Structures are given as structure tokens and as C-alpha cells.
């Protein structure tokens, strides 16, 4: 938060947005913040899209806790906090992936474990503040809530480079990952290394979490992972469009957040960023579906599924309406009028 004090003095007085923007960008710390923030937001948006699609939001939560503890453990040990940050998140991410990563089989156990991890982090914090001679009391806040303006040129460049690397890796595995997410059995048969992709992806999410911790903090990174991605999934049903949209929304959140903080210096940057991301998500939720389709009713007009040739071949009088009336989860109960056929009482081929 060291930049904020300086920020208080630098309110832009210009009323012209273009000049205001130029004025903002003339400050090095803003540039550093935007460079790092944009790169990190991009990878958060991209990775977050898959996190939400794969139902692994809980992993993002857990990795946030691990990020906190890893960073503070490193501080307590006297080494660069980023080392602990990345080591812990990548290792735990990979481990979660190995365990099968989808959904909370036992959310009580997971919550307990990661609450303990957070408690461990506070232990390291206390150790650090009592034992370290140069007790930097703001370290805790920096790890919890990030410090986008506190990034030096070097740190910002490093963060950006790492984020670019992570983005490249994610784009490399994008297609197989989507395939493995949507259709795992077929993907395996097609040669996609599904069992490797799972842990690899969560390790990548771990690294993303570590990056995001530097920008918006361990407690808030879940917002940047989940909100833009979920918003994108609401706004479009094309997967690749959604993926890039998610990245765009995340980057927008960072830019808007930084601008807000620049204009109103007492507002912390990480709050502004998360607030924008949340607002975007809320807006997306309220947007009516783009495709005003027939909705989720199971009864659809006959034109919905043209099936005449197939049905005729089967010798039944089923018109397109028959297929339309069926609900895939229904077991063998035709809606045909006249009650012609009841499902075969028993069938050659074995009992159900």
C-alpha cells in the first residue's frame, strides 16, 4: 500500500478523459501496475474460464489460502515470499489435480484442511513479526490484499513475464483441455492425456493464484478467477468466444480498478478491481439470454427436430413431435397418443 500515500497527492485535475488518461499513464508506478495487472488479469481470465467450466472453483479458494501461508512461511524463513508463494501453490495445485479435482466430494474435509492451512499462515505471520528484525508490518496486508502499486519495476516485469509464460502454456493446452473437460471419455479415446492434463492444469491455476496474490491478494484472487469467467459463460455459449471474453473482462476489471483508484486515492486498488469484476458479473447475470430459445420446457413444437425419414424407416408413425416431446432422462415412457406401445416388458439382452 506504499503507493497510495503518494497517490493522494496526485489527483488528476483534468476534465478531459484523454488527457486524464495520459496524465495517469505518465506515472511510472501506474505503468508498472498496469503492465503487471494486465498480464495477470489475462491469465486469470483464461484459467478462470476453465476453472468454472470444470467445476473447480473450490480449488481456487483453497489455493488462495495456500498462497497466503506459502508467502508467510517464506517470509518467516527469511527468503523471498514469492518463492514460498509459487512453490506452495503449484505443489498443492498439482496435488489437488492428482486427487481427482472435480467437485467437493467432502466439502467438510476440504474446508477443515484449508482452514488449518490458513491458521498455519497466521502462525508464520506471528513468527515473522516476532523474530524478524526488520518486521515489516504491512507484509500481512500485502499478501492478503495485494499491492499492485507497491510493485517495483523489476517485480512488475517479473510478474508480467511469468504471466505471459503461463498464458502461453495455457493456450498450448487449450483445445485438449476443453475436450477433456466437456467430453472426457471420448477425449481419452482420441489420445488426449486426460489424466495428465488435470493435475497440470491445477498446477497452472496454482501459479496463476500466486501471480494474482501479488496484484490483488490471496483473499481476493478467487474473485478475479471466478467472476469474469462466470460472467463470460453467461454471456455466450460459444466456448472459445467465452474464453477470450473472460480474459477481456478480467483485464477490463483491472484497468477500471486502477483508474478508479487513481481518481479516488482513498479507495484501495484491490477493492476497486474486485468491485468492477463483481459488477460485471452481476450485470451479466441480469442480461437476458442472448438466444431467446424455446427455454427449458420439454415440450417443443414439432418443427424442433425434423425426424420424419428416420421415424418412417422405423415403421412407426412418429412425427417430429415425438422426438420433441421426449425428455432424455425419461426411461421408456412414450408420450405417443393412443398408448400404442408400452415399453417391452422384458427384453432380450438382459434385465435393466
Amino acid at each position: 500500500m506504499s503507493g497510495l500515500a503518494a497517490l493522494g497527492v496526485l489527483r488528476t485535475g483534468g476534465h478531459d478523459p484523454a488527457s486524464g488518461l495520459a496524465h495517469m499513464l505518465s506515472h511510472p508506478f501506474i505503468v508498472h501496475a498496469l503492465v503487471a495487472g494486465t498480464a495477470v488479469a489475462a491469465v486469470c481470465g483464461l484459467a478462470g474460464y476453465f476453472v468454472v467450466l470444470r467445476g473447480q472453483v473450490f480449488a481456487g479458494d483453497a489455493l488462495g489460502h495456500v498462497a497466503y501461508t506459502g508467502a508467510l512461511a517464506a517470509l518467516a524463513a527469511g527468503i523471498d515470499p514469492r518463492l514460498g508463494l509459487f512453490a506452495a501453490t503449484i505443489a498443492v495445485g498439482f496435488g489437488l489435480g492428482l486427487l481427482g479435482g472435480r467437485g467437493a466430494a467432502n466439502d467438510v474435509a476440504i474446508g477443515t484442511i484449508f482452514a488449518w492451512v490458513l491458521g498455519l499462515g497466521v502462525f508464520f505471520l506471528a513468527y515473522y513479526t516476532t523474530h524478524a528484525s526488520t518486521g515489516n508490518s504491512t507484509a500481512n496486508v500485502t499478501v492478503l490484499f495485494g499491492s499492485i502499486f507497491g510493485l517495483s519495476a523489476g517485480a512488475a516485469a517479473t510478474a508480467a513475464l511469468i504471466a505471459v509464460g503461463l498464458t502461453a502454456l495455457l493456450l498450448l493446452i487449450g483445445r485438449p483441455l476443453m475436450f477433456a473437460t466437456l467430453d472426457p471419455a471420448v477425449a481419452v479415446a482420441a489420445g488426449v492425456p486426460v489424466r495428465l492434463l488435470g493435475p497440470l492444469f491445477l498446477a497452472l491455476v496454482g501459479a496463476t493464484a500466486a501471480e494474482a496474490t501479488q496484484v490483488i491478494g490471496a483473499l481476493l484472487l478467487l474473485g478475479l478467477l471466478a467472476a469474469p469467467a462466470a460472467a463470460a459463460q453467461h454471456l455466450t455459449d460459444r466456448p472459445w468466444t467465452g474464453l477470450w471474453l473472460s480474459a477481456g473482462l478480467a483485464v477490463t476489471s483491472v484497468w477500471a480498478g486502477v483508474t478508479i483508484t487513481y481518481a479516488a486515492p482513498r479507495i484501495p486498488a484491490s477493492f476497486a478491481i474486485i468491485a468492477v469484476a463483481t459488477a460485471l458479473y452481476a450485470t451479466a447475470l441480469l442480461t437476458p439470454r442472448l438466444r431467446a430459445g424455446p427455454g427449458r420446457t420439454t415440450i417443443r413444437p414439432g418443427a424442433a427436430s425434423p425426424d420424419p425419414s428416420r421415424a418412417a424407416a422405423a415403421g412407426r408413425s412418429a412425427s417430429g413431435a415425438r422426438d420433441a416431446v421426449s425428455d432424455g432422462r425419461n426411461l421408456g415412457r412414450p408420450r405417443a397418443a393412443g398408448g400404442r406401445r408400452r415399453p417391452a416388458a422384458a427384453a432380450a439382452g438382459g434385465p435393466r
Partner: protein
Amino acid sequence: MSGNPGQLRVDAVGPVSDSAAALPAPAVELTDVAARLGGHRVFSYVTLTVRPDEFVALLGPNGAGKSTLLKVILGLVGHTTGTVTVLGAPAGRRNRAIGYLPQRHAFDADTRIRGIDIVRLGLDGHRWGTPVPLLSRLLRPAHHRQAGQRLAEVIDLVGAGAYARRPIGQCSGGEQQRLLIAQALIRRPELLILDEPLDSLDVPSQAGISALIQDICRTQRVAVLMVAHDVNPILPYLDQVIYLARGGAVMGRPAEVITSDTLTTLYGTPVDVLRDRAGRLVVVGQPDAPAHHPGPGR
């Protein structure tokens, strides 16, 4: 009649071919194959042949190993004895030429991905990289166009044109199956493997999908191997039937395999096959496979 079902083999008399020339190489050939899964033997000494252009059903009670057999053919599960030749190569090598429709739960209603995008994944979902929506159209227009054409073709083939652009979670079971069949067909496979595609569909949808598969088998000249619970929807179209039970298999034409004598020999207990007025087959007395308790931590 020995008690060992594996040794009872009704010779596969395939469709009578006009020419005296050699029959085309089989699409799938298993010889004396056994497989283990989770520590116990699923089946042993299974011998079967699926010729190209044939529509073959794989039947049997729950737990008999039908899905496992499919996975052996796909090279996803190893086999302990015998040889497996799929499209002229060992199992698993030529999977790109196989269209696979695994047993799936219906897509979650929340899944907002379009059906057409899921079909598209069948084309190149395994290739590394990430598509950028507009970029591929600019940078590789010919490839993009061809892919689009093939996509439209295959969706038209299965008759899914009206709902392919709808989020797949909102499609009915029958519609989803058509889209997934399109996904399996998009690479012009020589062999189509389907694991209980008619499960959880209602009768009219079953009829529609069965007819579609038959259509594809004939016009696209694809060998079809389909696991089914109930043979009746597909009985009119079948060339061969494989009956898997008690660790062994019997293969032959439906009229020869699904008889009281054959099944009684296969199961070792009295089984009757009856035919009702509408011509449907009813099997009575068929026992389920003995349950194998999976060990802890399965």
C-alpha cells in the same frame, strides 16, 4: 453341449457376398482374448469378428463385461491373452479412425456450450493450441472453410440442424445423442463404437436413433459395434449379435444366437426366448452376472 460358453461358437455367417473374391479385412478381430479389471477376470477366450459394413450388437447382462470389451478394442484397457486387431493394427493405434460414443450421463442442464461446438471438438479437439475465433478464419481460410463444411455435413447427416446451435444442456436426450453421433462421425471413421446409446431414451427416440445408425452404417460404409441393453429397437437392422455372458461369448446371426438352446448353453441354466405377437423377443430366466464387490478405494 459343454458347460464352457466360450467354446460354443455359432459360426459367423455374414452377409452372403456375391463375388467369390476374398471378403474385405475385418474391422475388428479378437482371438481368444481375456481381460482383467480390478483384479478379477472379466471375460476369457472371446473370439469375434466384425466385418466392415456390418451392424453388430453386443448384448449381455449387467456386469458381463460389455463396456470392458469396448475398451479393450479401443486400447484403453489391456488384454491378458489373445490378439486384438482393430482396423488392421493392434488395439489403440488407429483410434483416430474410430468414432466412439461412450456411455455418458446426459449433459448437465447448466452446460451452456453449444452442441455444434461439442461436435467440432470431435474434429480436432486433441490438437494442441487454442483457437482464436476470428483469427483462424483470416489465417487459414481454406482449412476453416473445409472444417465448417464437414461440420455442416455431419450435422445434417444426423438431422440435428435445428438445435445444433442451442446450448447442449437444453437439448433432449435424443437430440444430445444425435449431436454426439455427429461428433463421432465427423472424422469419417471406418468403425463406430457405441456404448448403450439408447439407454435412457424413450421408445420413439430409440427408434429414431437406431434407424439413423443403420442409415449411417449402410450409406457411410461404417462398421458399427453397439452395446445394447434391449435388442428390440435394433433387431431389424442387425447383421450379427454377440452375446457376452459368464466370461465367454457367442456370436452369430440374431436368429441363431437368441434362441432358448443357445442361451441355455451359454448361461448353464434354463433360459427361454419367446416371441410375442409383434415379433419382439423376450428372454426369461437370464441371470445377472455375479456381482463383484469393488475393493475399497476403487
